[in-house]
């Protein structure tokens, strides 16, 4: 164990005195920013797609939109996140001539990717809401979109909150691949520390612990939110 003690000392030395801390904080910041922004974009896209999916399809426009959404979802669910990142960063964005940083591309791709997954969760959530809720909204003269927004989607989100939490955890973990497009996340930070000391055991252990703590915190947060949202289900 003496050896291990030495490694820890080395690690602490780099973190405290050789800029390791800044690297870790920067990485943590980017990891959280990418995951949170990705989730928010994903929820917005997911709600829009799910709404298109459940809209009555008498008219041409909803049918075209529906076809497009099906294509989009199968595209993003059918390819790995790393591939999507690489294609966006090295193929699509250069072609259309847009210059984005690694973090920005990551946010974009994480948002588009989680949008595809969340749309399916959201559709299940919307379909789990009693159709009578929509009818009641329509009967008092609210439009389909308004009833969706005020009545159905809030109940759908409540129903799928646990799965949405899983998606967020998934996103946090998936950020470990954003270094492929040059974004510095937690992995980059600890890899830097490891490379500086030629010693990877402690840095990677610390990285794992940080990921676990992050996920546990999120789990706790979701549980609290669920409790809040369940108020309307409880008899007092």
């Amino acid at each position, binding site marked *: 164990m003496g050896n291990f003690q030495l490694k820890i000392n080395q690690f602490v030395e780099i973190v405290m005195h050789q800029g390791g801390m800044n690297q870790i904080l920067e990485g943590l910041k980017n990891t959280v920013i990418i995951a949170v922004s990705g989730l928010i974009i994903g929820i917005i896209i997911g709600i829009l797609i799910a709404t298109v999916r459940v809209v009555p399809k008498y008219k041409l426009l909803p049918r075209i939109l529906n076809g497009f959404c099906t294509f989009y979802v199968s595209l993003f669910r059918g390819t790995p996140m790393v591939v999507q990142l690489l294609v966006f960063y090295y193929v699509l964005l250069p072609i259309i001539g847009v210059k984005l940083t690694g973090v920005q591309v990551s946010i974009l791709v994480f948002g588009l990717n989680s949008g595809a997954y969340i749309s399916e969760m959201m559709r299940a959530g919307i379909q789990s809401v*009693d159709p*009578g*809720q929509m*009818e*009641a*909204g*329509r*009967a*008092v*003269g*609210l*439009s389909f979109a*308004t009833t969706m927004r*005020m*009545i159905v989607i*809030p*109940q759908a989100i*409540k129903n799928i909150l646990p799965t949405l939490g899983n998606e967020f955890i998934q996103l946090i973990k998936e950020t470990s691949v954003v270094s492929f497009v040059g974004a510095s996340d937690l992995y980059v930070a600890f890899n830097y520390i490891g490379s500086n000391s030629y010693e990877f055991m402690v840095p990677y252990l610390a990285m794992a612990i940080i990921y676990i703590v992050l996920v546990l915190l999120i789990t706790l947060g979701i549980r609290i939110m669920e409790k809040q949202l369940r*108020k*309307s*289900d*409880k*008899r*007092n």
Partner: protein
Amino acid sequence: MLDVIDLKKNFDDQTVLDGINIHINKGDIVVVTGPSGSGKSTFLRCLNCMEDPDGGQIIFNGVDIADMKVDINVHRRHMGMVFQHFNLFNNKTVLQNISLAPIYVRTKDKNDKTPKKEIIAEENVKALELLERIGLQDKAGMYPVTLSGGQKQRVAIVRALAMNPDMILFDEPTSALDPEMVGEVLDLMKELAKEGMTMVIVTHEMGFAKEVANRVIFIDEGIIKEDAPPKEFFENPKDPRLKEFLSKVLM
């Protein structure tokens, strides 16, 4: 007030309504009866285009609302609906259930210059008055899940009233209730009838039909087979299918 002309509705290749014609006057209390599967609920749901009719016209206050080009939402605000399973908004409090639609409609109305805060305050006061009317003011801040079936249905009725509708449609309003709660809902409906509200009611409550309705109609095989005042309807039915139906339901 409401003219239904040759209303038709199919589900897939099955004809449910096969040319319904009826004229409903202001203040009419129309009870709709018929054997199960006769299309009486479908008829009611076609009146506010909850089901889109496949043919015919529904002239409500001079406008054919069966025409897909009209903005149905505007017309539905003048035609309340009460459902068998209440369908209160589960994510809204009892008070919000009542005031939500009036607040929304007024804030979107360009002719209504009242500031949003005042609209909300006014409509909440109105909603609270409606709750007082049915004795549920102490439930205002609670969620629908805490209410009994009878309380839910009475809230659903005043939710329809909050829009100041010209008429209210009732789709088997007491069928999902425990027997001891049927009375409180029917009493509220009787009150509305006395106040002159135009009502179309699909129900199996024959006692209510006799006492409150001024017209009872019998729908069978997708058409109206009998349309008569309750006394004549129950004591002197003409249609043979109605006679058979009455002999089964009036034991």
